[in-house]
């Protein structure tokens, strides 16, 4: 399919060691697939920042594909990605 650009925000930048990265994605691959690939690329600390390790469930946070907002708990993570998509991972946190 091509490449998507992934932008990290807040503490996900620390975990990834970068503000953004390009990911090669295959035809028909989805946001859910991207999340798994990111976990494989950036390791356990990154995964523990987006998934609760005791439940294995994704924490609630927003993923933006362009300006479209996809919720990890409410939305459709089977949203198919396209070449050139910009995907923003926003942080799962309360307080503030």
């Amino acid at each position, binding site marked *: 399919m091509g490449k998507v650009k992934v932008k990290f925000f807040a503490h996900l930048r620390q975990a990834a060691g970068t503000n953004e990265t390009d990911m090669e994605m295959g035809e028909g691959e989805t946001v859910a697939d991207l999340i798994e690939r990111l976990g494989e690329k950036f390791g356990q600390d990154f995964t523990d920042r987006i998934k609760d390790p005791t439940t294995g469930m994704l924490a609630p946070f927003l993923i933006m594909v362009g300006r479209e907002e996809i919720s990890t708990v409410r939305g459709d993570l089977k949203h198919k990605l396209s070449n050139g998509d910009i995907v923003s991972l926003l942080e799962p946190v309360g*307080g*503030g």
Partner: protein
Amino acid sequence: MTNRKYSGMPLTKEIARLYLGGNGFGAKILYDEVKPGIDPLGPENKFVFAAGPIQGTMVPTAGRSGVFTKSPATGYFFDAYGGGSFGPEMKYAGWDAVIVEGQAKTPTYVTVFDDTVEFKDASHIWGKGTFEVQEILKKDLAEPKVQIACIGPAGEKLVRFACTIWGARAAGRGGNGAVLGSKKLKALVVRGTKDIEVPNIEEFQKVISDQYSRIKANPGTGKALPTLGTPGVTTTNNQLGILGTRNWQTEVFEEVEKISGEVMRSRLVVKDKGCMACPIYCTKLTYVKTGPYAGTFDEGPEYETIFAFGSNCGVASLEMIAKADRMSDELGVDTISAGAVISFAMECYEKGILSKEEVDGLDLRFGNETALLQLLEKLGKREGVGNLLAEGAVRAAKKIGKGSEKYAVTIKNLENAGHSPRGMKGYCLGMATSTRGGSHQDGRPTAERIGKSDRKVLEGKPEYAIGTQRATTMQDSMCVCRMTEGIYGLMEVTNEHLNIINVVTGMNLKLPELVDISDRIWNLERSFNCREGHRREHDVQAIRFMTEPIPDGPSKGMYSPSEELEMLKDKYYDLRGWDKKSGIPTKETLQRLGLTQQTKDFYK
């Protein structure tokens, strides 16, 4: 304070069961003991320090406590909370609440050492900043372990957004510090040596140990907040297009990367710090090494302060924000309102409504760091134009006129905090119908910001507003920290609240009773406000948010038109059991919640 007298009374089981603590105690005491129509800065107002049932135990985040009074900013019931260790020390001294009434003739500080209370002369610390005051009193009393709640020069000068400081924590909002200033109470010093007991220590340890593990595993409380603290929200809000910028003229800040939590971590943070009994360590101690603010040591800044002195004033320097935060703590001003009043003045200046002469020669353009810091000092001491602006944005706008009223971004006379009512429909309604108005702690933005609820839709938002208000009221009555809202429940009262309360108190409450407690307290606050004349027509948003769509960015076009808000309010009032025309809780609602006095007051 008037006669330097004190008395104590026991907390009854009935009051504990009906009102729980913290927020509940504050609301109950103030409704019963403060007559409607009194001047918040007069002798008839009362000021309550109160803790919840968990303070003094090792329940995670049990360092918190609150202050409660009639606000000189809103004229309504107001509650503000701070972390640290003040609340537990009050409980170790044997007190769930301390009520301050009357007015001293001369500057005074009060010590509460277990059951011994003394009134002491504060003339040697009057005029001093809050950190210096705490250092002096610890030396004077030769008691390094005391906890001290105090006001700075701003409270003494009755600045309408003065706050109360303990340690470096602020019970920030609503001008509560000015109420203490009006009573000439410079500081309340507490030291306690008593024990706190729980009914079953093994059960208690099991429950809190389980919660502790979940806090550490949760990505929000176990990773995000420990890494960046609340400043991590800055870039998230900007990416969604909901970061208040230049007095909320827009909601995207082009220089956000210069004031992000990420940059703060790498350049300023020297240590993580936790409040008492807290495993999260969200606080960041910062030090400015170079540049014009070199040597600034700060506890913070938090996200709200980064928004208030940063994007909302057009400033792109974390170092200046840290300096302003430190100054605010020492002066004893609420950073949110101080920043909002400054941004209001900046917009008036740029639009020609305030001339340079009228602002003491300051070049008050957005982004001018020097002018911001100079104006902040003036605000805290009511000097020059600071005297006008220390009245808050709404009162200042009334005096300035020339159409400046629409630039006062306030809800119920309280300057808006760092979250967007235009960009989050549920939060918008939650604020409009709240007790405090411009606070982000009655209705909450979190569930919409993290996608648990769709921020752009109206469907379900009356239920959302009520659910978040129930959750915050419960957390504030327990006095747990808001950073645990994701653990306890963002949008409802849950078994998490229940289990902690029952294992600490042994009251064996059921969940419906807990919801009733939350509703009782919320309706008591509402009754206080309605007794002061508050009605449906006052449950509105800031003028800017109701009339000006967000002009650009990912949330372009969003705003809160009046007809939309009125439609949501209809449903909200129905669900709350409030009269649709007046906004007063109905007789049935008050009776259901056992609010007998309030039933008599409104339905003779």
